[in-house]
């Protein structure tokens, strides 16, 4: 089955006064229809820029996709005009952002905002769109939907706003949902509810999903495959179970070791922190970008390793494993 999304060697750079920031520097990914891919990384890894590149929402200037292709349903998004892209955003590919307060327009009602994609893409009139909006809000767990459609974003809690964002994203039955840290700004019990909701809706609507997060726990419960990003590149990818039981890249291993584990019996032992900080993407280090922080670094690491399949769908970019 051909993938719904195929990112081929994308490079997104930002041309600033201080120099060129290589935010995404040769990333390739693919997502099959109805599959969930988790894209994991910390600040500055390039995961959000990857998502924004797919949606062609990178501000130009200073940003630009300098090379690569993004195949969605057989068509290259990088070659499309803005008009063509407008027909895809919100309809075939939808996005849910991290901060629902800043993503929702404060001067329009919830109803108007949830209805907008349907009016734009599906040609619904006001009445149809409103009815459908109420249905969608109920579907995302807002039982008082008839009241909420008339409210404004500031009147809702964080969890409610994120549910509204999800309702907006689903209105036109997208084939792919990109969720960029959809629960980071929420309390843990609300986070659990929203994740449950996303899983359920994804199954009902048969969507594919690109889930971006820094939380490995979330990815373990929601994604079937995981890709780990570091300094603009993918360093490891595999099926979820495989990645967590056999992490190969030192960065992945370091991330897993630095999370305090609830199942630890001795609560006060020292965490194995990864020393140092992420590299400056204005001038990324030559060779492997993780080298300065890696406890397994060798001479060969001065040459950049490639992403190679070690076995059964498990890819890693590290000289130690080749």
């Amino acid at each position, binding site marked *: 089955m051909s993938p719904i999304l195929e990112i081929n060697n994308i490079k997104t750079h930002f041309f600033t006064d201080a120099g060129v920031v290589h935010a995404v520097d040769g990333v390739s990914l693919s997502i099959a229809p109805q599959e969930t891919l988790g894209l994991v990384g*910390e*600040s500055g890894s390039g995961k959000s820029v990857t998502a924004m590149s797919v949606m062609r929402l990178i501000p130009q200037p200073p940003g630009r996709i300098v090379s690569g292709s993004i195949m969605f349903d057989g068509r290259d998004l990088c070659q499309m005009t803005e008009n063509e892209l407008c027909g895809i955003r919100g309809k075939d590919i939808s996005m849910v952002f991290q901060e629902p307060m800043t993503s929702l327009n404060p001067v329009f009602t919830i109803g108007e905002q949830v209805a907008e994609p349907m009016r734009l893409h599906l040609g619904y009139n006001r009445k149809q769109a409103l009815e459908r909006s109420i249905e969608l809000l109920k579907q995302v767990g807002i039982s008082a939907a008839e009241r909420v459609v008339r409210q404004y974003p500031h009147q809702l*809690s*964080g*969890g*409610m706003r994120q549910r509204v964002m999800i309702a907006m994203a689903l209105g036109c039955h997208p084939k792919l949902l990109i969720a960029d840290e959809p629960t980071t700004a929420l*309390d*843990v*019990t*609300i*986070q*659990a*509810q929203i*994740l*449950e909701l996303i899983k359920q809706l994804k199954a009902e609507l048969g969507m594919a999903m690109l889930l971006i997060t*820094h*939380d*490995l*726990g*979330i990815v*373990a*419960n929601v994604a079937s495959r995981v890709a780990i990003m570091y300094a603009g590149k993918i360093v490891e990818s595999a099926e979820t179970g495989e990645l*967590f039981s056999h992490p190969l890249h030192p960065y992945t291993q*370091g*991330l*897993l070791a*630095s*999370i*305090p*584990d*609830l*199942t*630890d019996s001795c*609560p*006060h032992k*020292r*965490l*194995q*922190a*990864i*020393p140092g*900080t992420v590299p400056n993407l204005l001038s990324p280090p030559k060779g492997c970008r993780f080298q300065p922080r890696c406890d397994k670094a060798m001479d060969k690491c001065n040459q950049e390793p490639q992403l190679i399949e070690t076995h059964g769908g498990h890819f890693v970019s590290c000289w130690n494993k080749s």
Partner: protein
Amino acid sequence: MTTNSHEALNFLMNEQPLISVTGLKKHFPVTGGMFAKSQHYVRAVDDVSFDIREGETLGLVGESGCGKTTTGRLILRLMEPTAGQVCFEGDNILGYSPKQMLAVRRKMQIIFQDPYASLNPRMRVEEIVGEGLLIHKLATDRRERKEKVRQLLQQVGLQSEHLYRYPHEFSGGQRQRIGIARALALHPKFIVADEPISALDVSIQAQIINLLQDLQQELGLTYLFISHDLRVVKHISNWVAVMYLGKIVEIATCAELYAHPLHPYTQSLLAAIPVIHRKNNAEPAKVSGESSGPANVPDGCRFYHRCPQRTRGCQENTFPLKSVADKHLVACRLY
């Protein structure tokens, strides 16, 4: 009822604590307009009591709106409580004059959550970390201050040349180290760490947690560690108190709370944490709905509307913290 629970806690702890909080309340009045007849209150902190022994860490957990940050600030008198007592080394500091508070403030410091907002962008690191040294006369001149700040920076893993830089020149993790250096400058005994790592990346969180633990051992510090992250709290705390809508619903030693969480809210918090390897396949019951917020606190048990084990009686009664096991108190009808 408060006294009972505090007595119960005292009994558990058996010695003079460094910090002792009794019946702490903070109610923010919300007027309904100029001619409002009745006053409506946001009951942010509503009758909170606990003790912290010297050298230990009390983890204070809860979600947004539970009152944990407000509690931390009340203890330091960064806000004035509506009622209650805060005893530091046995004396109630709420009755202190400004001059007495100045002396006590040296011993009680705070690390803030937001490493971007908590450092003055117009001050260099030396001034930020050393500000208290001149005020409290721990350094007689600028030269001495610079030397002390240099030592503090080294202690938190930064370098001498960082003295001359401005906050915007540092990463989040580094700024938090600056905040920690600032908190240590006056050689305090007690530090309120208010979500000190929430704004940081996972790998940096681990570095800062290790730093905080090392400093605690080296300097004999006492921490009130406020957080919503139960994984981190488990790692760093000796005791844990769980807050919900202004009240403590459960308090126990760390090992006991995580091994036997009793209050339905604590259980739901633990169940909600996304874990990588789930021990058994059974999905624990997830809690529904959202908290009503501190402005609309319900009568009776505050967790009533979301509790999977509620009964009629829970809506009409409140349940004080009661000792149910060795080093474990919980406020729930079930016990």
